[in-house]
């Protein structure tokens, strides 16, 4: 459905994307992970035909995304990363404008989406919060029933409840056989919906893997609070990777093998477990490190 081959675009400041290559199959939900400035949006902009690749090609539905950009875009629903609407309009006017440009006549799906996202569409843009704008963007992206969804950080600005609504939407569309590519800088965000993901860093693809493999690779950190302070010393003797201890709290790093952790902890009286949120780099630190080492 989507083929990206050797895509390269170097900006005057030396940043950009380099030799980006991956494919997304029909019916697949594909995650595109990377920290800020990694090149996710730049890659996606090439899919939308906003830039001419310096090298390489991007193809959607058999159409080159630069040379035949309007054909390539025809069956695409696009949610830009940086949302900026036309000033002086309200949400509904904008939605209608986009419906007109998409050639959409049927308002059923549009109204259904507005309702599900609890959007008040007649609000002028200048009075909208970030989340409301994001909702308008989602309505516009989903309302014309596209074959392929290209979503740049789709959940940014949405509260947890709306994130859930959004995930349901994605899963429903996936069940209908639609194809997705969505970028994010949080693994947790895409792990619920995606089949595969690519990780990009400094403009280069680091890996493309199944979600399950990535889940296995990820490095998690837990703060375990033990009731008995003496147990802290005992746990230190185990094979677990202990980052540090603070009073009766032990910080443990786990990658892949959870059984050992459970086995070890079952020996003690645990009163709290909390997971420490980490950046993408930290989660896949081992992976990034080995790549760098190989280079």
């Amino acid at each position, binding site marked *: 459905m989507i083929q990206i081959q050797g895509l390269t675009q170097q900006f005057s400041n030396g940043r950009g994307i380099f030799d980006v290559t991956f494919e997304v199959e029909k019916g697949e939900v594909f995650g595109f992970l990377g920290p800020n400035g990694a090149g996710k949006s730049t890659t996606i*902009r090439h899919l939308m035909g*906003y830039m001419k690749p310096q090298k390489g090609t991007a193809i959607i539905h058999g159409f080159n995304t630069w040379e035949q*950009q*309007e054909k390539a*875009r025809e069956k695409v629903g696009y949610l*830009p990363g940086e949302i900026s609407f*036309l000033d002086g309009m309200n949400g509904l006017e*904008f939605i209608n*404008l986009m419906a007109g*440009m998409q050639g959409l006549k049927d308002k059923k799906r549009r109204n259904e989406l507005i309702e599900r996202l609890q959007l008040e569409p007649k609000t002028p843009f200048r009075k909208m919060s970030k989340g409301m704008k994001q909702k308008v963007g989602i309505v516009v992206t989903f309302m014309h029933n596209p074959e392929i969804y290209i979503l740049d950080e789709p959940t940014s600005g949405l509260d947890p409840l709306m994130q859930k609504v959004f995930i349901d939407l994605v899963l429903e569309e996936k069940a209908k056989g639609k194809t997705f590519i969505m970028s994010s800088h949080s693994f947790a965000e895409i792990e619920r919906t995606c089949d595969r993901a690519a990780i990009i860093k400094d403009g280069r693809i680091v890996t493309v893997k199944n979600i399950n493999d990535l889940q296995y690779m990820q490095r998690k950190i837990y703060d375990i609070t033990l009731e008995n302070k003496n147990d802290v010393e005992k746990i230190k003797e185990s094979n677990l990777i202990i980052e540090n201890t603070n009073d009766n709290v032990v910080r443990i790093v786990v990658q892949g093998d959870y059984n050992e952790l459970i086995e070890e902890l079952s020996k003690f009286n645990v009163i709290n477990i909390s997971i420490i949120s980490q950046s993408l780099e930290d989660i896949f630190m081992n992976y990034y490190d080995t790549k760098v080492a190989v280079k």
Partner: protein
Amino acid sequence: MNISLFNQMIKLNMKNFLIFGFGSALYVVLMTSLYPMFAENAEAINELIKIIPETLKNALGFDSLTSYGGFISAEYFGLFFPIILGVFSVMTATQLLAHLVDKGSMAYLLSTKVSRTQIAFTQALVLISGLLFIVLLTFLGGIVAGEMLIDDQTSLEFNTFFHICLVGFLLFFVVGGYSFLVSSLCNDEKKSLGIAAALTFIFYGLDMAGKISSDFEWLRNITPFSLYNPSGIASGDAEIFIPSFILLGIGFFNYSAAVVVFKLRNLPL
């Protein structure tokens, strides 16, 4: 062209169309209403004008103030009309492309099957419609005021007035055209506005300089403003067909170039 986009853009810009259109029309009416008073004191005013150097009189079109046609073409069509339409052209052209690219909202317009060519073409039509609307209101204002306020003997012929407005429109078809080309080239809205405004100022200035001093007469060959000569049209001295044709050609070239540039360039969206 895309109808939905066109309608929405007209709606968004309607306020400006109305402000500039009615502003221009009211000004014509106002100037027209001043003419009878002016005509009564014609002698005194002619005395006054004698003091002004010949060259400056030429530049400002004061040599033909004795008729209503001469008066309105010098006082309005030679002076305020270019300012009002110049500001409108530069501003609206920037608003229709560079502003949308700079702000990033163009990403949305370019997310459907509507091509870049169609979008640029539609936006150009919005600009041209705005110009047409403003000139039309000016024309109607002038005709109605002339009919009501000016004696039939001194009044300007319908055809002559129409010609002034037509060539005036074509001049700003060109000004709008190069402003639109600049707008399609720029990622930065302020830059687009600055360059288009500077160009317009320079072209206007070159025409003035060429009129004031015969040494600089040649300067008038490189500015579209010299093709628009309202005083000349009013007195029946100026050619209409050829300048109109040239203006139309330059205008078309600029809009086409803008569409091509917008189609081919990288957009930072």
